[in-house]
């Protein structure tokens, strides 16, 4: 049974409720749906002991073409490892305000553990393998700061 994979790299917002409805529509065979949504926080946690810095706007740069290819590859890898029915990945780019959705990962399966593991797997790979870069702005006037990659994100891949 072919897995139904849907990928979007987009500037526009998305509605997780609508995405859930698409994952479920006419889907009577998969009892399990797992989803993860990443949103813009209003602060940047400092890994190195500084105080939290406020974040008003997050600018997301991406590599057009490769971004779509990377997401498709990640979804396919997940579909090879777990018995999934439908997979949906969305990643936004451009300027985003605090609270806005950045990323959506959803997977349906006949097995709850498969759907949850697949979401964790896809987020882990997305964090370290998909060509997106975040720049944080404390306010409209401020110069931005590029978010630094975290060792923990790279080492999260070791468990797979």
């Amino acid at each position, binding site marked *: 049974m072919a897995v139904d994979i849907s990928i979007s790299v987009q500037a526009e917002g998305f509605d997780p409720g609508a995405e859930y409805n698409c994952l479920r529509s006419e889907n009577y065979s998969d009892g399990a749906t797992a989803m993860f949504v990443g949103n813009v926080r209003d602060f940047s946690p400092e890994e190195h002991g500084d105080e939290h810095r406020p974040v008003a706007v997050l600018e997301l740069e991406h590599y057009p073409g490769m971004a779509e290819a990377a997401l498709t590859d990640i979804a396919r890898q997940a579909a090879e490892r777990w018995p999934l029915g439908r997979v949906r990945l969305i990643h936004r780019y451009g300027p985003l305000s605090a609270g806005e959705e950045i990323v959506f990962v959803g997977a349906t399966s006949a097995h709850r553990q498969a759907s949850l593991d697949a979401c964790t797997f896809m987020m882990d790979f997305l964090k370290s393998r998909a060509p997106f870069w975040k*720049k944080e702005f404390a306010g409209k006037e401020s110069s931005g700061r590029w978010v630094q*990659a975290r060792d923990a994100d790279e080492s999260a891949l070791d468990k797979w």
Partner: protein
Amino acid sequence: MIKVLFFAGLREQLECDGIEVEAGQIATVTELRGSLQAKGETWSSALSHESLQVAVNQQLANMQAGVKDGDEVAFFPPVTGG
């Protein structure tokens, strides 16, 4: 020609989105990087960062990967999406 792209902080440091490089004797990413570093101090320093990432034809690759005329090669810092 090899199409070379730069992203994020690296793009800003170089003040350059991308350039075309004559393939010539270039056979690997390392050689391509070396020819770019010859462009001056800024390029030499920016492209020597040990965390520098590379993609060849939109697939993650390493510095030993082969490149040839017509390829698209991108250099960028570690990704931070998700």
